[in-house]
């Protein structure tokens, strides 16, 4: 299942539509890291509202996306982690340290807009 990516102004928005396999996740990582420079984006939002769980592989991959995108000169926000998914993540020992999170797409966009307006 491919994750659709939308360009909105200076930001890229990737919306996960369903449960992702490892292969989907790796594909998403490559696509985002490639496109962020091509699109000259300042920030990337990955909306994971539809993800059924976030296990160690998924969170490691998302963390890597954020780190790689930072190396490519942009900022990543993960939005839409569901309460029960967050609960399972911390029980498992996953905290997505160093990754910015926001409640939903709207909040993620607010965060990026604020950040880049103030520095611009």
């Amino acid at each position, binding site marked *: 299942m491919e994750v659709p990516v939308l360009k909105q102004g200076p930001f890229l928005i990737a919306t996960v539509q369903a449960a992702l396999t490892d292969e989907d996740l790796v594909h998403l990582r490559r696509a985002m890291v490639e496109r962020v420079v091509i699109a000259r984006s300042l920030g990337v939002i990955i909306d994971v509202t539809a993800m059924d769980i976030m296990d160690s592989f998924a969170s490691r991959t998302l963390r890597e996306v954020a780190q790689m995108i930072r190396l490519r000169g942009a900022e990543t926000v993960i*939005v839409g*982690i*569901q*309460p*029960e*998914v*967050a*609960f399972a*993540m*911390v*029980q498992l020992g996953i*905290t*997505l340290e160093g990754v910015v*999170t*926001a*409640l*939903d797409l709207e*909040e993620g966009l607010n965060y990026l807009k604020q950040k880049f307006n103030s520095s611009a």
Partner: protein
Amino acid sequence: MAKETERLERPTAWHETLDRGASLEGTAVLLRELVAHLRENRTQLREEWARRITEAKLLTAMSKDEIFAEATAVYDQYVEALETGTFEALQAYARSLSERIIPRGVETHEVVGIVLLLRDVLARSLFAKYQADFTKLDRILDAYEPAANRIANTVAVGFVQERERVIRQQQEAIRELSTPVLQVRERLLILPIIGVIDPQRARQLTEQLLRGIRTNRAKVVVIDITGVAAMDATVANHLVQTVEASRLLGATVIVTGLSPEIAQTLVTIGVDLGKMNTVGDLQGGIEQAERLLGYKVVPIGAAS
């Protein structure tokens, strides 16, 4: 082993397992006679029972009419259980009866008391009927007693189980109430924790907070633990997990009211405090939360 379980779980006609006194067939005959006797004297016996209940000051929460109505129903179920040797109907009735009388404050000893009274009333009537023929009386009582015991047991256990269910429900409700998630401003939640935190409560608290963050779209949460007396390593880790899970939903947590004792515990057991944003007291916590949300509180005089 499997067979054993099967036998235990099957609603046994208890006369099958009866081995004392008369033969199986004889027992069945005696029971039929017993049931016929109880049917014939239904009116008199249940009146006698209801009278004894009132005399013994049991079921005081109920009116005379109510006692009589319930006594009639239980009496009929009782006779039916004796006749058929199956207890489902009686069990179901005991449950629904308990459901009705528990909220009115009926106690376990009252329920056990009335069942024992019925047993006594019936035994006395059997005695009166068969006192001329002791051998027969003996056999009748042998047939009656195990059944009566089982019936008493069924009703009492049904009551106790229902009571336990109610207690569990109430505990749940108390627990919900004891961790209120309060919205004090748009996007700001306060979670005052009071009392003892065990792992179960810690989990519930986290669940409630996460749901609260989502429904209120909260950005900042102040967890105030002024009312928490002590904290061990397990609970401290739960607190850290709560903070981390909230962050995954995009909310910042400020912990306030750490007592000197708890501060010492946390340092001693080496909880990673780097992830925790702490402020001395609740007021300071709210002030910091407001700053994070972009509010500025100024006295009215100073604003103009």
